[in-house]
């Protein structure tokens, strides 16, 4: 575990040796610090990974992993041959990307705006209030959304008063995806803004003072100071949300969709859920999970490489 360090010009050899020893020792200390976490990781993440083999078997719980028949790529082939798989895949990507993009944007904007509020009490209470919808499950929120967006709901009532025709949010294939994205953004922006707020408050206020003395107005300060300092975090969160890209939100879709909008609303997970999973087609479920993981891995690695190219620094 030897670490080479460059020898500064004015050091004696003795000092060098001492420093070298210190670095080596520090190195072992680092490994020691990683150890407890790695043990947990190995036990609870890596050992269970033997289950990945289920994706290549015809796994039957009664036979166990060792006893189930090996079927190779059969499940993957079946997945790609499902009649609506292309459509479902497209829906998943569109909805997931929409949520990530719009969600990030909303959270950033909100955190910047909230930061401008001086009244501590107001700031604190708004902060607390907006992070609440995150905690309500979609089972509960779906009822609220349906209530608001149904043909007789409030939203349509308001539209009517402006002379606009009733919109069938829940039943129209052209409106359902925006509905999913919009309501999800609304649910999560408050909670997501927490990280951005932490980043904003970490900015040295001295920078802002200096800038305004130089004559920069509010907008310029945001654009040149606040946003750039948030950039690493924004990129990091965006990249870290990539593995989830094929998840697109089962709970939400499941509780809001009906056969009328299967065409635009069916995502990979809801589709797979109905395809006999309900606890029995484990192999297929695992295969889909692996498929999602591989896509996630490809995305996250390419994003990391791109980040390195353009910002001169890898994110991890």
């Amino acid at each position: 575990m030897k670490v080479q360090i460059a020898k500064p010009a004015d050091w004696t050899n003795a000092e060098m040796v001492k420093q070298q020893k210190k670095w080596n020792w520090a190195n072992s200390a680092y490994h020691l610090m990683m150890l407890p976490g790695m043990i947990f990781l190995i036990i609870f993440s890596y050992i269970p990974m033997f289950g990945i083999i289920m994706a290549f078997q015809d796994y039957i719980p009664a036979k166990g992993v060792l006893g189930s028949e090996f079927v190779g790529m059969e499940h993957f082939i079946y997945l790609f041959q499902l009649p609506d798989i292309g459509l479902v895949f497209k829906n998943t990507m569109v909805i997931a990307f929409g949520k990530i993009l719009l969600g990030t944007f909303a959270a950033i904007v909100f955190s910047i705006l909230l930061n401008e509020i001086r009244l501590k009490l107001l700031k604190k209470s708004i902060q607390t209030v907006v992070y609440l919808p995150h905690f309500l499950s979609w089972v509960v929120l779906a009822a609220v959304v349906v209530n608001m967006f149904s043909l007789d709901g409030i939203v349509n009532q308001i539209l009517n008063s402006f002379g606009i025709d009733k919109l069938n949010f829940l039943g129209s294939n052209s409106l359902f995806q925006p509905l999913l994205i919009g309501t999800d953004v609304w649910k999560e922006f408050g909670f997501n803004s927490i990280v951005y707020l932490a980043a904003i408050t970490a900015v040295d206020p001295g920078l802002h003072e200096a800038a305004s003395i130089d004559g920069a107005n509010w907008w310029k300060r945001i654009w040149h100071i606040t946003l750039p300092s948030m950039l690493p975090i924004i990129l990091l969160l965006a990249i870290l949300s990539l593995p989830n890209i094929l998840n697109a939100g089962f709970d939400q879709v499941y509780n809001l969709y009906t056969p009328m909008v299967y065409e635009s609303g069916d995502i990979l997970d809801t589709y797979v859920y109905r395809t006999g999973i309900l606890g029995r087609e484990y192999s297929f479920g695992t295969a889909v999970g692996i498929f999602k993981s591989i896509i996630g891995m490809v995305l996250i690695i390419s994003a990391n490489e791109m980040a390195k190219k353009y910002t001169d620094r890898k994110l991890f």
Partner: protein
Amino acid sequence: MVESKSISARIGRIVIHAIVITLGLFSLLPLWNIVAISFSSSEAVTANAVGLIPVNFTTETYKMIMEDVQFWRSFGISVQRVFLSLILNMVLIVLMAYPLSKSKRVFKGRNIYMNLLIFSMLFSGGMIPTYLVVKDLNLLNTIWSLVLPGAVQVFSIILIMNFFIGIPKSLEEAAIMDGANPLQILVKVFIPISLPALATVALFSIVGNWNDFFSGLIYMTKVSNYPLMTYIQSLSISIEEMLKSGASSNSLENMMQVSNKNLNAAKIVVSIIPLLVIYPLLQKYFIHGIVVGSVKE
């Protein structure tokens, strides 16, 4: 802080306040609706007659909760779980984020560890293998089955690691000069500076553990061991599911009496209260700016 006195700035200020307050109200509405439902009578709720004001006001639901022994037992289990997980998570997060924030030159093998972490975040063996491992460690039906599998929060580790990377090297070098070992550097230098970020991941840990209902479903075989969200979720079986599973008409009747929306709403309200309490406590870490640039260069 910087204030600008011009008219346009004033108007801008007002607009910003208006937007933020509106967003706040929007976020509050559904919860308000749920609170109203929790204080309304069962039929009124079934009739969708409740908006922001309770209809046929009743505190029956909260009374039922108070008397529901299992509710409070589950509440306690959740509190215990969150507490234990928080300690475990935070310790592991800082222990791992620190070495990972070092460059490959200084910490050999850093990239290997990083890749192992990322890989574990992307791939999972699934419900059954994880269950088998937990079972073989004899953790079923213990609080540890809810705490240990989630010990390593990779997302948070990466977040803190990035914050650590952003800390000026001069601070660390000063500490090394003073003869500090890595652990001391971590505890005395890095942690105090990263409080907003640490508060953030602490919040993630608390929220994540409080809200998770799935672990309880598979690792606890008796309802008496369920954490709170698992318990609440188990009561929310939809009538549709009951019909499809061929329940007898007697069971359906009995179930209808409990799956009252108003009771469920009350349970949801009670289960959110702890989170409402935690957040203001942590908020002071978010609002006060942390003086990173305090080192005399």
